[in-house]
């Protein structure tokens, strides 16, 4: 019966049902996220956009199991997140590579920690795992830098390595929190291409938080707009441009129109917050 059902609808990779988050208690209580429903099918690439402080990072933390919902529940890969045997990959704006390890060793780090790889780490780090890391680094154009140290790489290259570290253990869910936020426009567009290629080749489920609407339109299969704090999802739309997408496509009328609509939704969301505060 499972087979019949899953052939109709792909299994949900992430499912938030009425999940809400509040920090602190009493007077100091901050509602970060209103009860939110969000389902993500396997292989989807979701972009989360919205005003600052609306709870985007909070949603990622829920999906990673780092944060428990105050109410409702979060199911990732068919399991309650609290069970904590997830395979997620995360990357933030700050690449946080370890300065005393080479790029190769940095990317390999998750294999040293995640089960079942960690049991085989000593055995395979010089053969199978090494080849795997090299293949991935090759995909992002870093094959010449495997034995370099992080300080020898530029910001864009570090972020590529950071993406590799988030992907090396083939996570069922990839969580990206403004990973390209600190890069200049050209490097950023270059990395969109890299990210798109990685996604098309490996098809992980991705949740991307970004402030860049063009980035959301370029990468995502679906975009959710959030309201101001306490956040909830006020707009949820698919993005149907053909792939591979190019930077030139971001100047086409359809793409510009999508950006425009998203922009308006976010400006609306911000002005309601300002009205409430003032």
């Amino acid at each position, binding site marked *: 019966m499972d087979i019949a059902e899953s052939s109709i609808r792909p299994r949900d990779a992430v499912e938030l049902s009425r999940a809400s988050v509040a920090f602190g208690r009493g007077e100091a209580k901050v509602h970060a996220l209103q009860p939110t429903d969000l389902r993500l099918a396997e292989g989807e690439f979701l972009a989360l956009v919205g005003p600052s402080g609306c709870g985007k990072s909070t949603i990622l933390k829920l999906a990673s199991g780092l944060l428990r919902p105050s109410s409702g529940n979060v199911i990732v890969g068919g399991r309650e997140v609290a069970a904590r045997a997830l395979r997620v990959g995360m990357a933030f704006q700050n690449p946080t590579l*370890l300065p005393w390890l080479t790029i190769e060793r940095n990317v390999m780090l998750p294999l040293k920690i995640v089960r079942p790889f960690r049991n085989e780490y000593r055995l395979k780090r010089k053969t199978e795992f090494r080849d795997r890391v090299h293949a991935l680094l090759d995909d992002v154009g870093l094959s010449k830098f495997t034995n370099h140290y992080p300080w020898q790489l530029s910001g864009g290259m570090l972020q590529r390595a950071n993406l590799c570290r988030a992907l090396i253990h083939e996570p069922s869910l990839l969580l990206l929190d403004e990973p390209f936020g600190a890069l200049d426009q050209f490097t950023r567009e270059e990395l969109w291409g890299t990210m798109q290629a990685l996604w098309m080749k490996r098809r992980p489920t991705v949740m991307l938080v970004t402030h860049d609407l063009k980035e959301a339109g370029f990468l995502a299969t679906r975009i959710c707009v959030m309201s101001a704090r306490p956040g909830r999802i006020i707009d949820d739309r698919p993005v149907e441009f053909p792939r591979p997408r190019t930077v030139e496509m971001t100047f086409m009328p359809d793409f510009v129109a999508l950006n425009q609509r998203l922009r308006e939704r976010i400006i609306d969301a911000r002005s309601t917050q300002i009205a409430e505060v003032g």
Partner: protein
Amino acid sequence: MSYPLRRRLWAAALILGFFVLWEVLCLALQVSDLILPRPSQILATLFSRMDVLWPHILQTLWTTMIGFALGVIVGVVIGALIGTSRIAYDTAYPLLIGFSSIPKVAVVPVLVLWFGAGPLPAVLTALAMCFFPIVVNIATGLASTEPELEDVLKSLGASKMDLLLNVGLPRTMPFFFASLKIAATFAFVGTVLAETVASNKGIGNVMMSASSNFDVPLVFAGLFILAFLGVALYVVFSLIETRFVGWANRKSDFAST
């Protein structure tokens, strides 16, 4: 000439110049060697009395190294405890600050009272002098992990132990080695301090008895030995530091070449 080499030459020239100036001024002003002996006299004393001084040098060195080794162990354990646990940090820090701000000279009489004059009070004074910088550095190093990195690793299912072994400890190494340099010098000061107050061996004791016999060149010879040993300890631990945690300095090396 490269900048580091030039810098080293200038430093050597300054030291040499200092002694030459000292020598010349003493000669010119005809300072009595009961007040301030000339460097050449001090060196002569040093060499002629080396056979007497040598056991004392060894004594001071040994005492320092034992106190230092114990201090490292105590410092690492306490530092790791308060660096990894918020509660331990909040509870223990005030006591540690209080303990470290007691002038150690004041502790020596107490130690002598308990253990008698001899090497044991010196070892303990060295320990008490040197463990605190290690505690502070280990604790800071462990506490300074970026929250994002912690999130990345925790979301992979990393345990506290994984974090400590893969991130905390390696990140703490530069702090640890930096503190070793300081701690070694502090341990040395502690030893000499205790020897000066209550002991019958060691450079501190030699200087004390020389001073009561008005053997001024010998007092200064003791000072020279102390300065030399202090610098030597510092250099040894600097070398160990560059050997083990070169990565912490590579960035600047790279930029300057």
